[in-house]
């Protein structure tokens, strides 16, 4: 490894799991890839980096930040070095996610119907009813095939010993899957032949699988039901993703104002009059989807759509009310749910979580605040968060006051270091912290997880926050089909 322009200066950090290197050298998953790039000069690598940026820009894979007048065009930062997972690792992740989703889906069904889990004393009733994302309107609503979590994007992180932990389940409207697809399409442009050489599994089935599931949800006896994707519109930062998915599935991309409800049926306004809609893949949050039932000031939703959903005339994906299972205090109970509903031991670990509504936990957390991450239970995207090791006295004090005022809305977790992966930044390979978000599709025929996902990167040196809203970037994620053939020899 010495003498190679790229790898020579790469340094592992203490007590951080690196995806590419272990103490002995390059991990098997990366060996084939490294042997292909290690002799590239800095110029060649930089050229690839620039090519990738240019491709993203010219293909319009951008999001627009509207501050004043004309928006600023931005690309979601992309690192050209892929993150590589071995077949066995993937198998473990896949099994773990499937198990988790099964339990979470039963939980949602249960909590909005008979509530066995509360009656049996596994989850406290108070925790559920105090959750602002528990949607009372969903109680006793029948959803097609009892599926709530059609699309989820589970965030996984790795501790210093390489153990995978689930950080969040994202059961509402997870975004980023278009970047999984686009990152792959950029990779084969900048690294010709490397994908087949490494035996990387394809991710291109995602839109087909999703469409198959959506079509299956239609209630009308019809061979070609109308499926649409509901977007908040071009000013939404994920608009690119909405158009990409609609195009890849060949379905209509609609805005709230394109839809009307009449007699509990949803119609879209077309040049030939009204057309009934059977299935809606919505990318509009619960709060905004129906001004008659939820936020009355919302312009993004469709008045009356909840009634159409409740009466079964339209299927909505994901189901409303999933937020209760995304609540970070409810998250702490997921391992118990797996044991209770499935009678199995969890395959993937939860990050230990302290609910601050409990006075003993509060005392413990306040004492060790510098080793804790404190999060608001209903925030996501890296907002409403305090990382103890990096916080000032003042910030900690502010959090203490806020917690004392409303302890139900906070949890604390020990700081997990997050694994690092090599990134090509300023002409040098440097370690940066990463997480992994695979996307799972839950349909009437079971759960499909496309082999891959979005690897998010904290581009700031030493940072643990990978969210794109907080300066994060992404990497292509390779899942290898079989053990790397060159693993034994090298």
């Amino acid at each position: 490894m010495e003498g190679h322009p790229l790898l020579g200066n790469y340094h592992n950090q203490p007590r951080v799991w690196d995806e590419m290197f272990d103490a002995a050298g390059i991990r098997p998953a990366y060996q084939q890839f490294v042997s292909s790039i290690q002799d590239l000069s800095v110029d060649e690598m930089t050229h690839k980096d620039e090519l990738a940026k240019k491709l993203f820009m010219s293909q319009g894979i951008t999001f627009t930040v509207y501050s004043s007048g004309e928006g600023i065009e931005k690309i979601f930062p992309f690192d050209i070095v892929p993150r590589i997972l071995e077949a066995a690792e993937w198998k473990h992740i896949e099994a773990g996610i499937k198990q988790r989703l099964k339990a979470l889906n039963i939980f949602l069904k249960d909590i909005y119907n008979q509530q066995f889990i509360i009656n049996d004393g596994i989850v406290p009733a108070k925790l559920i009813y105090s959750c602002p994302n528990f949607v009372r309107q969903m109680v006793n609503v029948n959803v097609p095939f009892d599926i709530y979590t059609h699309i989820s994007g589970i965030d996984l992180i790795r501790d210093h010993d390489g153990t995978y932990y689930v950080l969040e389940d994202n059961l509402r409207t997870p975004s980023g899957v278009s970047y999984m697809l686009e990152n792959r399409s950029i990779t084969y442009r900048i690294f010709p032949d490397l994908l087949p050489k490494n035996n990387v599994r394809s991710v291109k089935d995602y839109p087909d699988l999703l469409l198959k599931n959506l079509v299956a949800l239609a209630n009308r006896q019809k061979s070609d039901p109308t499926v649409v994707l509901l977007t908040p519109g071009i000013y939404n930062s994920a608009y690119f993703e909405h158009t990409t998915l609609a195009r890849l599935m060949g379905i209509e991309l609609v805005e709230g104002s394109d839809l009307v409800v009449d007699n509990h049926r949803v119609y879209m306004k077309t040049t030939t009059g009204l057309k009934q809609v059977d299935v809606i893949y919505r990318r509009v949050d619960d709060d905004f989807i129906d001004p008659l039932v939820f936020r009355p000031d919302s312009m993004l939703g469709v008045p009356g759509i909840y009634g159409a959903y409740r009466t079964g005339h339209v299927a909505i994906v994901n189901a409303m009310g999933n937020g209760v299972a995304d609540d970070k205090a409810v998250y702490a109970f997921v391992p118990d749910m797996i044991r209770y509903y499935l009678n199995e031991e969890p395959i993937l670990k939860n990050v230990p979580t302290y609910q601050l509504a409990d006075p003993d936990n509060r005392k413990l957390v306040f004492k060790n605040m510098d080793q804790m991450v404190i999060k608001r239970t209903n925030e996501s995207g890296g907002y409403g968060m305090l990382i103890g090791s990096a916080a000032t006295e003042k910030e900690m004090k502010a959090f203490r006051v806020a917690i004392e005022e409303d302890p139900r809305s906070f949890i604390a977790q020990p700081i997990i270091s997050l694994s690092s992966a090599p990134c090509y930044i300023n002409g040098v390979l440097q370690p940066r912290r990463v997480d992994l978000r695979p996307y799972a599709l839950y349909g009437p025929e079971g759960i499909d997880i496309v082999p891959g996902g979005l690897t998010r990167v904290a581009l700031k040196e030493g940072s643990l926050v990978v969210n794109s809203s907080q300066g994060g970037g992404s990497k292509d994620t390779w899942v290898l089909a079989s053990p790397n053939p060159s693993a034994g020899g090298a």
Partner: protein
Amino acid sequence: MRKNKLLNRKRSGGGYMLSRVADSVFWMARYMERTNGMLRILRTNYISSQDEVKDFSWQPLLLSHSDAPAEEVTSIGNNSAKVLQHLLFERNNGASVINNITRARENARAVQDHITKEVWQCLNDYYHLIRSKHIQSQLQQGDPVSALDALIHHGMLYHGTVDITMARGEAFNYLNIGKFLERAILTADMLNIKLTELNYNLQQPKEVPALRYLLYSLSGYELYLKTHRGNFQADHVLQQILYNNNFPHSVAYCLGQLFRYFQRLETESLPESYKQLEFLIGRAMNNVRYSSIRPSESEHLKEFLQQTRSELFNIAAAFNQYYFGNS
């Protein structure tokens, strides 16, 4: 035969176009056509400003292609670099080329699933091209004609991309309806501007160079030379611009094409809406076809152009009402 038609309709996704989408596709095409028209006018005017025309003035063009306050427009005067800067790149001028391209792209962005990826990328590249430092410095310090040519070429790339990649479905029809409607309006407008410059007096003893430049701007000069062998007369110019069915910028040609693409919408229209539009387009077509314009009758000519324009605007308004659901 009938079965085939049904099959085709299904394949092109017929009957499922959102009114909003039809509206956006229509406007995308209009903005692109407007962009193309403007770039060509600017190119011709710039060249004529460098050429023999002694008392060349940018003012008529500025007044018609800028919505900036009158005093700002007058202050730009006849400084070609400033005029081009204002008409091409000025964000505060609502009618500038950069604003047209931005709006075309915004419309395309909202209907990405109805145009091909190639068309979207082409428009996206167009937007990045006109924003590039290179084009702007070429215009200010280099050769403005090269800058305009680069922009015009990219516009042609767009038309080729549409032609080669777009399915012949509803979206394609609205693209063409928007394009030909806008082109007819542009042609009528440009003719009107030139004639206003000449006070509608075409009976001048000497040849009028303004009419030659008009033909250049409409890409019709070569056709004119071939047809009339260098015999330059105002009457012939008018005949070509208004009536020549082989000239893709003539008002008659544009209306004919507009009608042709409109007719393809019949199976995908509400009968009532179709009838309304068919009447309006048919009337406009016939009013042009069965008119007889002579350069000597300047009042009549003026009236005719105004009537044609207002009929074209009525067609646009009717599409807006009957097909795009905006009343």
